[in-house]
């Protein structure tokens, strides 16, 4: 029993902290959000830290870190919150390739993902019903993949996309399609979200089919990735708390810091409680993954608490900040938008709770 970060993890933590401090300040992230700057121009600095190889085994060019190590990385990235395809590429797609790809596919894709030369997205979104529904939007036929799905994250920078499909005889699978393939188009979806797109393919030619695909392997890659998405949400919530604590001391109204008012305190205490519920269930879930224990229930619990906590925590933070909180350059709305963007991404709280009920035979 040792509930502290180890040396390796402290090092990873400071690597990401340095990256954010140097290249992705709050001001820069606000510029990404308003379109005044483009993450594309700074993607190299993310790649140079090596964090994209965190989860990828050494024999495929990665660091071979544990889930808990990678959790530390994503918790820090969440503090930005740094948008970008780091999660879809180095966690979700990498996991799918590790679990469903052939040996040659792994050797082909994983080292490049770790370097950041290949950037993957995955055509998964709104996982609020059964996993099977993910395969319903795209059909594989002789002349390629056709279909459309909304709210796919991070397609703009992606070089490849993994598309879950159903082929004519009703068989499911995963196709790798380069994003510059003829017949593939993406459309940005603007609104109360960060980097979401519509993906449309019309007879798009596929590069590879991940032939090791089984629904169980797919589900396992998905749930493992969910645990790391939780880390990102936890990091986001942690930063939201820091912002509120600082503001509670520096903002004066009625002649005193607003944090002296118990109604303000209550909002911040709610955030701490959302945070610690999500954080400790996430830590425990990652540890269970690392020690090959039954982790499904724990991850769904973390998934539910992280989505809910980040969402409600941002609401509470807006109560604390009032008008100041909605000014883009202040930085809180980056989290608010991110909390909404991720709320239903790999399952909303209701989905996770249903899965817990099933797993416990309720």
């Amino acid at each position, binding site marked *: *029993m*040792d*509930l*502290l*970060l180890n040396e390796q993890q402290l090092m990873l933590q400071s690597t990401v902290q340095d990256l954010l401090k140097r290249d992705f300040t709050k001001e820069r992230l606000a510029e990404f959000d308003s379109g005044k700057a483009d993450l594309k121009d700074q993607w190299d600095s993310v790649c140079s830290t090596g964090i994209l190889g965190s989860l990828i085994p050494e024999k495929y060019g990665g660091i071979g870190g544990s889930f*808990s190590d990678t959790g530390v990385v994503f918790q820090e990235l969440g503090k930005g919150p740094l948008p970008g395809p780091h999660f879809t590429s180095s966690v979700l797609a990498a996991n799918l390739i590790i679990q469903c790809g052939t040996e040659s596919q792994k050797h082909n894709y994983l080292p490049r993902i770790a370097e950041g030369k290949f950037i993957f997205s995955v055509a998964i979104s709104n996982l609020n019903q059964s996993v099977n529904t993910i395969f319903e939007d795209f059909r594989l036929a002789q002349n390629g993949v056709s279909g459309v799905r909304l709210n796919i994250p991070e397609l703009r920078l992606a070089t490849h996309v993994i598309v879950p499909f159903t082929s004519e005889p009703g068989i499911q699978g995963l196709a790798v399609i380069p994003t510059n393939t003829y017949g593939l188009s993406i459309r940005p979806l603007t609104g109360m979200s960060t980097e979401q797109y519509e993906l449309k393919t019309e007879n798009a030619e596929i590069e590879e089919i991940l032939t090791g695909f089984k629904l169980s392997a797919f589900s396992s890659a998905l749930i493992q990735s969910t645990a790391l998405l939780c880390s990102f949400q936890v990091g986001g919530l942690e930063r939201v708390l820091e912002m509120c*604590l600082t503001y*509670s*001391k520096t903002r004066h109204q009625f002649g*005193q*810091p*607003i*944090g*002296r*008012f*118990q109604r*303000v*305190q*209550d909002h*911040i*205490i709610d955030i*701490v*409680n959302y945070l*610690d*519920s999500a954080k*400790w*269930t996430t*830590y*425990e879930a*990652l*540890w*269970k993954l690392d*020690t090959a224990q039954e982790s499904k229930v724990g991850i769904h*619990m973390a998934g*539910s*608490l992280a989505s809910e906590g980040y969402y409600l925590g941002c609401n509470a933070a807006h109560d604390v900040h009032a008008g100041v909180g909605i000014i883009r350059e202040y930085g809180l709305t980056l989290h608010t938008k991110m909390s909404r963007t991720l709320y239903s991404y790999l399952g909303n709280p209701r989905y996770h*709770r249903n899965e*817990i*009920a099933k797993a*416990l035979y*309720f």
Partner: protein
Amino acid sequence: MDFELEWTKDQEAFRKEVRMWLQDNAPTIFEHPDPANLTEEEYLLQRSFGKALGSKGWLYPTMPIEYGGGGLPMDLAMILEEELDLYNLALPPYYDTGGKLGSMAILVWGEHQQKSYFLPKILSGEIRTWQLLTEPESGSDLASVKTTAILDGDEYVVNGTKIYVGSNHGAEYSWTIVVTDPGGERHKNLGWLMIPMNLPGITVEPMDLLFVGGERGAASGIKNTVFFDDVRVPAFNLIGGENNGWKVASTHLEIEHGLLRSAVRGDPLTERIVEYARENKNGGHFYIEDPYVKERLVDFFIDTEVTRLLHFRNYAWRSQGKQLTYEGAQAYLFQKRSQLTRARAVLDIFGSQALIADPDPEAIGGGHIEIHQRSSIVDQHPGGTAEIQRVIIARRLGIGRSEREEPGKLN
């Protein structure tokens, strides 16, 4: 991060020793849904088992050996608790806040002679001690207590009233927060006094309350009003010196605000509710088949798990020597508030039948469900209300303050 409680060979050897000893010494004590029903005979059995534990230093296993504790690290104490848990017993096996809270205050603040006098009595199980804090006019604002202890020669003369005191079946001592300087400045006018309960002028009257519970080991069954009329207490019994009682109290309050809960025990209530919902029907269907019931059971499960993890975190950090700040009060707040949400959900699920008490044959879960309808309300207040826990969290986080509040002294 490592959540595994891994045991070394030495630790496993200790477990074996404990297990063997318990096979010969552990008494069978019926767990009453309502601890008020604990009989005198059962209480005496608990006390003599306490003394047996005490003779091995296992009654208060982490306290120093020189005063009769076990001098054991927290991991071995946890093994002891785990093994006792198999017998449905806790440490100590009866209500004794003198040991759970007061002994730490004496250890931190007492003079050498005071430690040598009081601690062996407490740690061996020779005496049990109640805590006397709350008064009719002083609850959340503990520092405003009115009970006076005025020095007269080498004795303090105590006058006043304390409420929500102790348990059934009496106690040998009470530690009491008193005013030693009635004209003094707030927080600098108090004393912390160990009062023998057999002194003339002390009257104990049971209170008529909705319910009195507590966790197994700490279950008290009954709360009393204690009246002091010119009770003469040796000045030797004042711990921590003149007018220093608030600081002494900060030590045991620190423990009480969320550091008491065992890291071992899960929550039997959730298990009972799930079991009943699986095995019983409502309108032709098992309760558990109802989607609403399923959702509530998942809520219970998550609540129980989060509370467990927060207590586990606190335990792990304490045993690693990391200073806790707001975490104790946070875990305590979760523990309290989840009782209320669960009580309402239970009433929603099982309807009015949840309100039927043992020994009626229609009582659900042997009466435990009805008891929870009462205890969920009662549990909100002891050890500081939910609001007080929030105040502590806010101060320790430094919300609106340039400096964070320091935790109470624990060593």
